[in-house]
């Protein structure tokens, strides 16, 4: 196997293009396990973990821009406002201090894993993902990201993730159940991003799930049922019932169905109740 510590995105793309079995390594927390299990046919590793342009995290005007090779712990050292608590919670629960010190946000998304914990919050924030290949540079919305990259991102590189700050009358939350080592069948995560108007009614809503589909995804049906409604216990019930119908349909015949039906109740309720607590404090 050949290895190379890359100094720039350009150089990385050249290698990816010229060597068909080359692969990016960033924090290595997924890839090294994959390589050791011989699940990856790779003959050239290109390390992007020292590329300065991918290691920046900054706020430009109303937008957070996070380089793809920023490890979770560096993101967590950045000061995010109280109403983005869901983002902080999602990253804080990833693995362990050691994993958060190495694992990166770009690497978390790149495998298109349905249980990647950064994905539901980024979907709920309507985040954008910067992607470069040798041929083009593109900014893809998280909602289109999985269709865009399919099973994985071959010979391209995620360069940044960006999302806008949310107004004070909005709140992002995240909750998950299940231990990582267990298979995706015993995991489930939800993120909600709710904006209320002055009458305590839902003006805008994003609901995103992890590990109840092939990819993390927006749950449009729940969103459309509760938009314009007051955020209260009835709406929590309605959201849970709707999600249960979705899960029953999506996971029909799967052994994980019953577990997920009870898990969704806890996870979605936690997100919505935490949001209500925030709005009461405001």
């Amino acid at each position: 196997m050949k290895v190379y510590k890359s100094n720039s995105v350009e150089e990385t793309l050249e290698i990816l293009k010229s060597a068909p079995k080359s692969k990016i390594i960033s924090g290595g927390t997924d890839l090294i396990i994959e390589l050791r299990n011989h699940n990856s046919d790779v003959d050239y590793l290109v390390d992007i973990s020292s590329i300065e342009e991918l290691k920046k995290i900054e706020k430009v005007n109303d937008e957070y821009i996070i380089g793809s090779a920023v490890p979770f712990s560096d993101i967590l050292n950045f000061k995010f406002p109280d109403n983005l608590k869901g983002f902080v919670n999602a990253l804080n629960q990833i693995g362990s201090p050691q994993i958060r010190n190495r694992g990166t946000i770009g690497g978390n998304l790149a495998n298109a894993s349905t249980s990647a914990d950064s994905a539901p919050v980024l979907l709920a924030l309507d985040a954008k993902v910067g992607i470069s290949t040798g041929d083009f540079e593109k900014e893809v919305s998280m909602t289109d990201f999985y269709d865009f990259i399919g099973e994985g991102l071959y010979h391209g590189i995620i360069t940044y993730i960006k999302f806008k700050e949310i107004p004070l009358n909005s709140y992002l939350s995240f909750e998950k159940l299940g231990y990582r080592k267990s298979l995706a069948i015993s995991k489930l995560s939800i993120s909600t991003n709710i904006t209320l108007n002055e009458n305590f009614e839902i003006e805008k809503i994003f609901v995103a799930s992890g590990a109840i589909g092939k990819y993390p995804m927006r749950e449009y049906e729940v969103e459309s049922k509760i938009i314009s409604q007051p955020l209260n216990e009835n709406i929590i019930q309605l959201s849970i019932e709707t999600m249960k119908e979705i899960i029953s349909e999506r996971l029909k015949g799967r052994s994980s169905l019953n577990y997920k039906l009870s898990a969704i109740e806890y996870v979605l309720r936690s997100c919505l109740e935490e949001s209500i607590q925030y709005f009461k404090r405001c």
Partner: protein
Amino acid sequence: MINLKINVNNTDYEIEIDEEKRLIDLLRDELRLTGVKEGCSEGECGACSVILDGKLVNSCLIMAFQVNDSKVVTIEGLSEGDNINYIQKAFIEAGAVQCGYCTPGMILAAKAILDKNPNPSREEIRMGISGNLCRCTGYEKIVEAIELAGGYLNGTKTYRE
């Protein structure tokens, strides 16, 4: 083979190493720093923990070539000459070592916690060692040891000679 420059425990090395080796292989097999333990090889147990450029990491999940020009501290780097350091003393004093397999990683996790905050809460300690598994102690004594080490560091506790 590739050439690596690395500083380990304050000594500079230039080493030729196989491309496929991980940091743990470099430390254990090339530099004979066998205080770095290999448990699960999958990032779960923390036995292989070292401090890389100031951060606690699992050396089983880093390729050796990635650490070129970096600085690594292993358990061997903590003692001062023949004397063990204050965290090691606290682990002994608190009875936090049984079989000892987790201990090097646990002490480096403790160092990462105390380097940030010499007066950590129990919650911070538990979070800080959450990537280090111990099959023997039930963790309570380890938490006490790290509190004690914090006490040594900020002067509220003194060593029993």
